[in-house]
């Protein structure tokens, strides 16, 4: 094992994936071959059901897993697809067309529903989706002219490929299997491309994702649309397979929960987890039903509930989680010592300061009556390092939030020079990122469940949309930041110093022109401070302008070309570092008389 790893080229996937790929191929082949070989109608039904649930769960996982929006109302998209297919079929339109009509309606519905719900997380999003599902069900019951109301709808038994209804079982399996493959393919494509990384990043830390230039609302809407469309198409097919639909069965909460449950048991957020969940659970359910269902009322449902509880308690990351823990334990332990920050070779002479790249004028911010920022103005030139210091509560981070788009000022403007040489006034974090403004957060915001490499890739995607390019940039950046040994470790395992570096690395990977650093040296050791200073200087030498909030005076003094001192939201001094520290006003702000004001 170890030998293979040593000789593996750096770009290769981890070794354990190879047997995994084999297992995947076996499962997929078995899903198709077993029913064909056994040739029994019931076995066909079980496997068609597996394919349908695997497909539905995989589609759900794009929203529930990747995007982390726990939808318990996914049956509404399934229902839209089912009804669209049914209604159109009874008008003489083939379900192959109805399928896309349903998908289109589901996409519109999903966007309209999800957009206002995105500010809700976890249980609240789940509750909102349940409520929407109930509303859909009640409306489907009410508008019986369209939906047939409670009596449901039936199709005429028109047989053949054109109508998706067959006397033989094989064609139905072929369609279900094919649709499941489509779902898996879409899920795979999303996860392995920029969109997937963006989704997971957004799920883990929305604000950090925004800072990395991710249009969080847009990527989520894309995910929801893809998921809704796939779910609706599955719904159309399943309606044809059942030949009969009714609101109670189609817009069903139990059904929605079931879809999500397969994904949970298989492994939420993984590509193949939902497939695995369905493959294991559907036959198990069938056997349990055969063995228990007819014996006593509710026994089978009780067992079902208990299994769910046990899985949640002992395998919260699902089967995939358990499997990967098993394989990861076998993989070599990651080094535990702090890696050094690589010293960068620096140019002998530093390039002269360039043109003005950022102009801040009369910035105002108040919460209620409290002025947090009062009339702050400054400029930043190309290749300059500007230190922003001040006592706690002086409003430094508030200023940062306003010059990176995370907070709207009550007054004043922030202008940033674009590459075309014009000054622009960006508004949202996305606008700022587009103009090349990158920031870190004082309280580190890693994407905890992603690896270090993936964390940095989220930043790198900003300039390099292709995964391989982004990975390349991420590795380079990690190397420069001394994070190379942990490339494949989950970010949650890093020390605070490591997380600070990761924070900078992610921003650096965006290749910003203006870098806003919020206390990146707090809490790291002396040697690392020295190296971090070198690093920042080398970054500066590439023409990047830096504004740094810093408490480590050693760093401020040696780095900054200019220092701004903020106290109680106002600039009280500005100038060369050595001049500023002698300013009596500054000394007073830090040490004395105004202490009470400054602190709050």
């Amino acid at each position, binding site marked *: 094992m170890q030998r293979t790893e040593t000789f593996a080229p750096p770009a290769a996937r981890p070794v354990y994936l190879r047997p995994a790929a084999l297992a995947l191929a076996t499962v997929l082949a078995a899903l198709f071959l077993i029913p064909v070989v056994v040739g029994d109608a019931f076995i066909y039904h079980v496997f068609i059901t597996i394919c349908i649930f695997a497909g539905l769960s995989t589609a759900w996982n794009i929203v529930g897993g990747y995007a982390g929006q726990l939808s318990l109302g996914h049956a509404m998209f399934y229902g839209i697809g089912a009804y669209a297919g049914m209604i159109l079929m009874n008008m003489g339109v083939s379900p192959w067309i109805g399928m896309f009509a349903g998908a289109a309606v589901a996409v519109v519905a999903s966007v309209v529903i999800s957009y206002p719900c995105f500010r809700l997380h976890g249980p609240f999003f789940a509750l909102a989706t349940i409520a929407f599902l109930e509303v859909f069900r009640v409306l489907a019951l009410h508008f019986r002219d369209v939906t047939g109301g409670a009596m449901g709808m039936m199709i005429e*038994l028109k047989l053949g490929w054109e109508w998706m209804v067959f006397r033989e079982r094989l064609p139905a399996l072929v369609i279900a299997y094919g649709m499941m493959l489509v779902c898996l393919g879409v899920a795979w494509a999303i996860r392995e491309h920029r969109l997937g990384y963006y989704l997971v990043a957004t799920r883990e830390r929305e604000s950090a994702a925004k800072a990395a230039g991710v249009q969080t609302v847009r990527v989520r809407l894309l995910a929801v649309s893809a998921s809704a469309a796939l779910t609706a198409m599955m719904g159309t097919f399943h309606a044809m397979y059942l030949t009969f639909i009714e609101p109670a069965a189609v817009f069903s909460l139990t059904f929605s929960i079931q879809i999500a449950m397969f994904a949970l048991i298989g492994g939420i957020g993984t590509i193949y987890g939902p497939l695995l969940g369905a493959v294991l659970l559907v036959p198990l359910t069938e056997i349990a039903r055969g063995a228990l269902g007819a014996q006593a009322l509710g026994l089978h449902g009780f067992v079902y509930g208990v299994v769910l509880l046990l899985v949640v308690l002992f395998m919260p990351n699902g089967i995939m989680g358990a499997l990967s823990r098993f394989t990861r334990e076998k993989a070599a332990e990651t080094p535990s010592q702090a890696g050094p920050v690589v010293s960068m070779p620096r140019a002998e002479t530093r390039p002269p300061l360039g043109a003005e790249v950022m102009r801040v004028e009369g910035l105002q911010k108040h919460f209620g009556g409290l002025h947090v920022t009062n009339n702050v103005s400054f400029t930043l030139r190309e290749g300059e390092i500007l230190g922003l210091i001040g006592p706690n509560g002086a409003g430094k981070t508030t200023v940062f939030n306003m010059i990176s788009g995370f907070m709207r000022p009550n007054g004043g403007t922030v202008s940033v020079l674009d590459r075309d040489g014009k000054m622009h006034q960006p508004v949202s974090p996305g606008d700022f990122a587009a103009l090349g403004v990158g920031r870190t957060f004082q309280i580190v915001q890693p994407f905890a469940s992603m690896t270090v490499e993936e964390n940095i890739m989220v930043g790198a995607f900003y300039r390099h949309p292709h995964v391989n390019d982004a990975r390349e940039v991420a590795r380079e950046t990690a190397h420069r930041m001394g994070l190379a040994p942990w490339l494949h470790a989950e970010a949650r395992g890093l020390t605070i110093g490591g997380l600070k570096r990761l924070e900078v690395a992610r921003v650096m990977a965006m290749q910003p022109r203006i870098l806003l650093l919020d206390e990146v040296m707090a809490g790291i050791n002396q040697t690392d401070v020295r190296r971090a200073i070198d690093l920042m200087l080398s970054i500066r030498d590439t023409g990047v302008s830096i504004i740094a909030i810093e408490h480590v005076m050693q760093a401020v003094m040696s780095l900054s070309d200019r220092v701004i001192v903020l106290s109680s939201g106002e600039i009280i001094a500005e100038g060369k570092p050595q001049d500023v520290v002698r300013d009596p006003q500054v000394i007073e702000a830090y040490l004395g008389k105004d202490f009470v004001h400054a602190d709050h």
Partner: protein
Amino acid sequence: MKLAGLMTTSALALTMMTPQAFAEVTFGALFPFSGQLALLGEESARGLEIAVDEMNAAGGVQGEQIVLERGDAVDNNQAIGEARRLISLSGVKAIFGSYSSARSIAASQVAELAGIPFFELGAVADEVTSRDFKYLFRTNPTADHMGKLIVEMIVEKVAPGLGKAPGDLKIGIIHEDSSYGTSVAGHQERYGKEAGLNIVTTMPYPAATVDMSSMVLDLQSRGVDVVLQTSYQNDSVLFLQQASEAGYKPSAIIGGGGGYSMLPTAEAVGNDVIEGVLDADFTQYAVNTDFTPGLESFVETYRTKYGMEPRSGHSLNNYVGALAILKAIDAAEGLKPDQIVAAVSAIDIPQGQTAAGYGVQFGEGNQNQRASMMGMQWQDGTLVTVYPPEAAAAEMRFAQ
């Protein structure tokens, strides 16, 4: 690898579950045995079981003992799966079912495509037999019969009893909003219009509701004289209680099966509240037994087998339907689907010859065209048949 192994094992396990024995014929019993519909699904299946016991005691069908293989149709997809399992793994010669119309529609589709006879003994929706299936037969009366019977009862009995012309009564229809309530209410409206009744409102509501006071107020403020409710148990109880508590006393309340026929409903609302309430449903137990030969022995068998009184008329009607079918199969030339179909199509049992009173003869869409419902009334704590006159065990009473 492991997974594939598991898949194969489970497929094998499923295949090997097929019971095979000599001189036995297997029929499927496809009912919702778990989930929301479990209670009456189970009650319906008991009727089938008693019919099978009776046939087996008399030598089975065509000399073979009958074995029932249960299938649990908990939802529509499951109904299809269980139908497939029964047909292909258990090798049933026919399927009996299924209480729920939705399950019946889904499962009978499978049976039809597989060419296996499907006998519906209890589902009431029109759609079950409106598809012109070759292998599907329904023995029980339907939503249509229920709507029709209720309207007839109003015109012929209730209105005269209240001393009014049928057209002068203000009629309000309320029904639970699933397929059962909706289809019965639809027929009530249609037959009501034909008979010139004055239907002032039709209100659907969800069966799982916990409050019907607004609806009661609405009926009250419209001055409705006769309330027709088609409901399950919970909502029957709720309506009767809330109406009585609101001081709303319509001249007549006519329930459509479901909760109205069940003893627990009467217990829940109390005898004084349910006294005089009318009900249309499958044949129940307090009936003129001259019209329903075999009823008493059925009840006797039920008590012995299950140690309790029948909980509703579902078991009786499933028993009657199943017995008629099984006797026909016994007389058939063989157990091939077409032989069964031929024998069943030839059934001709006149009115008044079965334990449910109605006869059996299949007409359009293979619906039993002799099936009918009966009108009943809660009198002194029991549900007594009051309509039609030939089956009545007592006279209809009117509160003055």
